[in-house]
């Protein structure tokens, strides 16, 4: 699959939640787009990613 524009080989089934945590983000500080559509946060543990998926993860930082 593609994550933030880079190819990621995954040999085990992975959920959106697993991907976000594995990439070092905190779940409550991100937004995730899957194949061009926003992923509702409640769906993170339920959606299994596929080889041809394209995922964008954005993490937010403090200050404003």
């Amino acid at each position, binding site marked *: 699959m593609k994550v933030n524009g880079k190819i990621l080989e995954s040999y085990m089934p992975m959920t959106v939640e697993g991907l976000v945590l594995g990439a070092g983000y905190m779940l409550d500080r991100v*937004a995730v787009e899957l194949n061009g559509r926003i992923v509702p*946060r409640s769906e993170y543990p339920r959606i299994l990613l596929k080889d041809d998926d394209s995922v*964008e993860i954005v993490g937010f930082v*403090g*200050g404003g």
Partner: protein
Amino acid sequence: MPLPNMDDLDAVLSSRHSPDAYEAIRKAKIGIAGLGGLGSNAAAMLARAGISRLTIADLDVVDLGNINRQHYYLEQVGIAKVNATEELLRKINPYIKVEKHCMRLTPGNIPDVFMGCNVVCEAFDVPSEKAMLINTLLEKCSGIKVVSGSGMAGFGRSNDIRTEKLFADLYICGDGIDMEGAEGGLMSPRVNICAGHMANAVISLLIKGDI
């Protein structure tokens, strides 16, 4: 000088921006969530550029510790930020329509607060609140574009602050570095650079649909 009438203000902005560009700006409604360093400064820039309908939301009152970077003045300390912002915006355009929400934004009230906005500026300071607002807008308010500020603390490194399109309807301005890791804390010049990126992205989205 007596206040100019609305037609005079329109004529000035229309001749400066070109009639087509000004029309796109004038008819838009823009939301600003959070009136701290990013939101208060972006609001003033947008009003100067001719935005005439703004929805602003913030829970806080102006504090002495805000004056180093936020668009307020000492005599406004203690006033609700939504009221202080409206007061300043009216000095730029007395005919501006400001919808004020002095409340905590939640997934439950965000769709109602920002309904009808073309673009919403995310200008909170706490990362989890930023994420909550952006997720709610993108999930529940289809058609609204979101411009978010993420990473603007410290000084120098002006050119590290960038505007990028990350999702179909999400644009991020900033350097992506948390304030905890930035020497100097939050300072007016760099916060204003980021607020300028945000306001500039809003104007560009209105006039040409992209950044």
